[in-house]
């Protein structure tokens, strides 16, 4: 069984099974969304989601575009 990690996701504590950002995105069903991810204050390019491993306590911001003026 997969090991679970505790991370900060969009400001909330969360336990996730995902080992990489790619798995996290999949876990959330956001593969086809125009999103961006900031990992510990650094933006991570999509191209590196697969190789970017999650570790205990990571602080992740996962954003998208909404209506705004």
């Amino acid at each position, binding site marked *: 069984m997969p090991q679970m990690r505790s991370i900060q996701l*969009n400001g909330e504590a969360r336990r996730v099974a995902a080992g990489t950002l790619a798995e996290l995105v999949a876990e959330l*069903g956001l593969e086809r969304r125009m999103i*961006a991810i*900031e990992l510990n204050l650094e933006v991570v390019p999509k191209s590196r989601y697969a190789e970017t491993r999650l570790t205990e306590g990571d602080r992740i911001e996962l954003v*998208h*575009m909404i*209506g*705004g*003026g």
Partner: protein
Amino acid sequence: MTEDLLKVGTYTFKSRLIVGSGKYRDFATTRAATEAAEAEMITVAVRRVNITDPGQENLLDYIDPEKYVILPNTAGCFNAEDAVRTLRLAREAGGWDLVKLEVLGDTETLYPNVVETIKAAEQLVAEGFQVMVYTNDDPIVARRLEEIGCVAVMPLGNPIGSGRGLANPFNIRVIKQRASVPIVVDAGIGTASDAARAMELGADAVLVNTAIAEAKDECMMARAMRDAVRAGRQAYLAGRMPKRAFASASSPTEGYIWD
């Protein structure tokens, strides 16, 4: 007017009406009004995905990034750092390098904090962004932002969402006369004549959101704004008549039957 194009950084537009995507009752109306406005550029905000319901509908399901130039903004940022972080994420999300920078000074007026705005603009330009920057109507600040390398300067007409038109037309005109980058009047436009007036002052474009989104009939107001921007632009290019204190007869003042 087919040759009268708006160039912002490396982008070129036929339309001089930029719209916002906020405050609409639903995404369908956002799309319908944006189409009615015949806009080519639309601002969007960057926010956290709702993790508890990541699957919910998204603005970009309605506003096609292939069809519109998406202009991510930094609405809600009160310091340079937050604004820079926000736009780095926006660029990663959609590859958008043309951005609208706004660093606010307070929540009541939503006026910019020009000191933080300057700091953020310097950083973003250094990182290769094409920065359209929201600012107050101070010509000195506007010139500084242009010198930094912003591709468009966006002075406010009045507080965001106030719909009170242009508080200081003189400053808008001065800003335009000195600028070599496009001047976009942003904030304050409440109805069509406000947009026409802004264009007559020489503005290269206007950005309208609340005035359309809060109109009773959003699409009709969008068309009104479209026509008003064209009207104001043409009036500016046509060269208006001089103002006179007194009257000037429109009909010949001789040849009367009672002379």
